[in-house]
């Protein structure tokens, strides 16, 4: 037992959790905490809007596997976190958000900068707390980190009234906690595992779909081993990108609304689908009634509520992706009787067809290929949301898990840049690139000031078509080219914008200039914005229109 203030207990508890970085902005209701942080070794990164704090914590967690931490003051500080917290919730990312709150005696009185952030974040957090007395702080922090990082990860918010931060109390820092209402299932049921192994061994055309759970549980090795063992091609969801190196002969790339030709064609033929750590979002399934009606679906997820939520499966397995894939591998000691030659021929054929679809030219797909050639294998790519994101997902190959950072479930424009800042803080040894659109980058670009002043050298590639590209694409395809409120007017000048923030600004109008600019950005190792003017008429294909099924895929030129 040690006597200290609530704020001191908070910082000590964070240090005990191994927290090295915090993203945030101080305010009236967090002054006591920031006073203690002044003397701490924890590095605080001062973002320019709290939304960026949450996204940076999110990017930090995705690339490092460690929980990201963000701070905001009460009221507007806290509510500005909401989009970022929702984003982490939708993509199951472990972040812990701390918010200041008005003093307990003022709660409920509509005090200055009071917002019911616990009420607001209940549906968008895995769990949240409002600390009622200073001595509860150490245990609450412990629980928050435990809940955020265990089972299916997710965001946790801890609301700290100002008087609690100031109060002194005898603090007890326990190492053990147990929550009677929370016991995640990690070990898969052995009978289910054996049935899965049998189904896969006897399948003619097995296929694996790997989701974010494979990344979260670090199960890539087990995934690759299984796919090679049973000769099953692997498609990934947006969240699963990087689970298998995309130059692997069995890797099909992304599946779904904007899936690769290979993934979207082969899934129509598969007879057994092993779906691991994924949740059958509408972007993956299309019309759920028409999603692979003839295939037997094995669904592996650590969250039992995902089983049969959107798609009824043939065989459910509740468990950790890594442990489950390992167990299936172990159970599959049979040698495959035939080598699935016909199936492998098809995989090869569709992959080749897809690979050859990218033609040389100053187009986003080709620029993604060029970027891939320049960047080292372990470079981290974050994306914004919209066309830029889908071009990156489709054409920029990821070779390693935790190197592709994208807002999947929430589809948050403005996510990529702050997420890239968080990623670079977590992995300063890596090159970090944000593939952006002009519309998305505009939503959070003021954090250029943060990246420059904190010396976090990320590279932002703005695929600048002067329109809200994905909305324009839908208006072009489904609304008779009636372009309503998508034109962005060709402003700002992103080179000047970068320079105004003390960053390097470059422009690339040819493939050669693009190559040169990226290399210059890498070599100079400063925050760099590369403005890449592209045609506003570009579409992302293939595409399955919303609510349609895999049979209805539109490909380029069709």
């Amino acid at each position, binding site marked *: 037992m040690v006597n200290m203030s609530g704020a001191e207990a908070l910082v000590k508890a964070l240090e005990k959790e191994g927290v090295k970085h915090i993203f945030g902005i101080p305010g009236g209701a967090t002054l006591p905490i920031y006073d203690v942080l002044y003397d701490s070794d924890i590095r605080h990164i001062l973002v320019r809007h709290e939304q960026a704090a949450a996204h940076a914590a999110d990017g930090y967690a995705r690339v490092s596997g460690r929980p990201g931490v963000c701070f905001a003051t009460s009221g507007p500080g806290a509510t500005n976190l909401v989009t970022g917290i929702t984003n982490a919730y939708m993509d199951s990312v472990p972040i812990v958000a701390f918010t200041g709150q008005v003093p307990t005696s003022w709660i409920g009185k509509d005090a200055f900068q009071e917002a019911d952030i*616990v*009420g607001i974040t*209940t*549906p968008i957090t*895995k*769990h949240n707390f*409002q600390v009622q007395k200073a001595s509860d702080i150490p245990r609450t922090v412990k629980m928050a980190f435990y*809940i955020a990082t265990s089972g299916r990860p997710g965001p946790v918010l801890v609301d700290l009234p100002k008087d609690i931060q100031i109060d002194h109390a005898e603090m007890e820092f326990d190492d053990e906690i147990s*929550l*009677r*209402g*929370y016991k995640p299932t990690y070990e898969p049921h052995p009978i289910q595992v054996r049935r899965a192994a049998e189904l896969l061994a006897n399948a003619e055309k097995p296929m694996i779909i790997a989701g974010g759970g494979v990344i979260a549980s670090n199960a890539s090795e087990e995934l690759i081993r299984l796919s090679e063992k049973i000769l099953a091609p692997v498609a990934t969801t947006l969240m699963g990108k990087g689970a298998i190196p995309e130059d692997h002969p069995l890797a099909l790339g992304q599946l779904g609304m904007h899936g690769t030709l290979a993934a979207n064609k082969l899934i129509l033929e598969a007879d057994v689908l092993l779906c691991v750590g994924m949740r059958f979002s509408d972007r993956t399934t299309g019309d759920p009634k028409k999603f692979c009606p003839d295939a037997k679906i094995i669904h592996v997820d650590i*969250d*039992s*509520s995902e*089983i*049969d*939520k959107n798609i009824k499966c043939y065989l459910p397995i509740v468990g950790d992706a890594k442990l489950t894939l390992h167990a299936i591998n172990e159970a599959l000691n049979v040698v495959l009787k035939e080598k699935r030659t016909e199936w492998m021929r098809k995989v090869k054929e569709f992959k080749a067809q897809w690979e050859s679809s990218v033609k040389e030219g100053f187009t986003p797909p080709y620029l993604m290929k060029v970027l891939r050639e320049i960047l080292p294998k372990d470079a981290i790519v974050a994306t914004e949301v919209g066309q830029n994101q889908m071009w990156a997902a489709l054409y920029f190959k990821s070779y390693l898990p935790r190197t592709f950072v994208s807002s999947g479930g929430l589809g948050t424009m403005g996510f990529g840049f702050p997420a890239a800042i968080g990623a670079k803080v977590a992995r300063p040894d890596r090159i970090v690139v944000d593939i952006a659109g002009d519309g998305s980058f505009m939503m959070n670009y003021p954090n250029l000031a943060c990246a420059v002043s904190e010396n976090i050298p990320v590279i932002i590639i703005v695929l600048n078509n002067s329109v809200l590209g994905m909305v324009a694409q839908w208006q072009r395809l489904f609304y008779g080219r009636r372009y309503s409120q998508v034109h962005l007017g060709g402003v700002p000048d992103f080179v000047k914008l970068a320079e105004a923030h003390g960053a390097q600004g470059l422009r690339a109008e040819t493939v050669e200039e693009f190559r040169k600019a990226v290399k210059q950005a890498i070599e100079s190792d400063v925050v760099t914005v590369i403005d890449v003017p592209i045609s506003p008429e570009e579409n992302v294909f293939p595409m399955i229109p919303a609510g349609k099924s895999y049979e209805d895929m539109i490909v380029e030129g069709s």
Partner: protein
Amino acid sequence: MERQTHIISALVEHKPGVLYSVSNMFRRRAFNIESITVGPAEQKDIARMTIVVNADERILEQVVKQLNKLIDVIKVSVLDPAASVVREMVLVKIHTPNSNVRSDVINYVNVFRGRVVDIAPDSLIVEITGDPDKINAFIDLVRNFGIKELARTGVTALSRGLKSVRI
């Protein structure tokens, strides 16, 4: 799939905010609550929620799983109606302008094994306990007299005999 009424018994942490997180989950997932009752359970710090939902089997399964997912929810069971005691209480203030009506009402109350708990010059308050069907039947019966006010508690329930929802 056919929708029917199910009774869920959940043990939860007895602390502020838990009812909110449960009802919030129902709203967010677009599940309907027919009734919900909460009170302290047999063990200290634990409350029992009895939630009645009208749902098909698939939605019921989701409701149970989503409830289980909440950190402050400790245990969730769907009660078997045939092996459970299910009770609800209603207080009804009935318009009784004259002694004829009053004696009719009192007769009904006796048949339903209820009690008259308040008498005023032109009204009675009646308390009836039973399963929801019995309460509905009573309300239908006295509706013609004129119901001035009505308050139902919502259903509470326990499994019979050896079968228990405990931690």
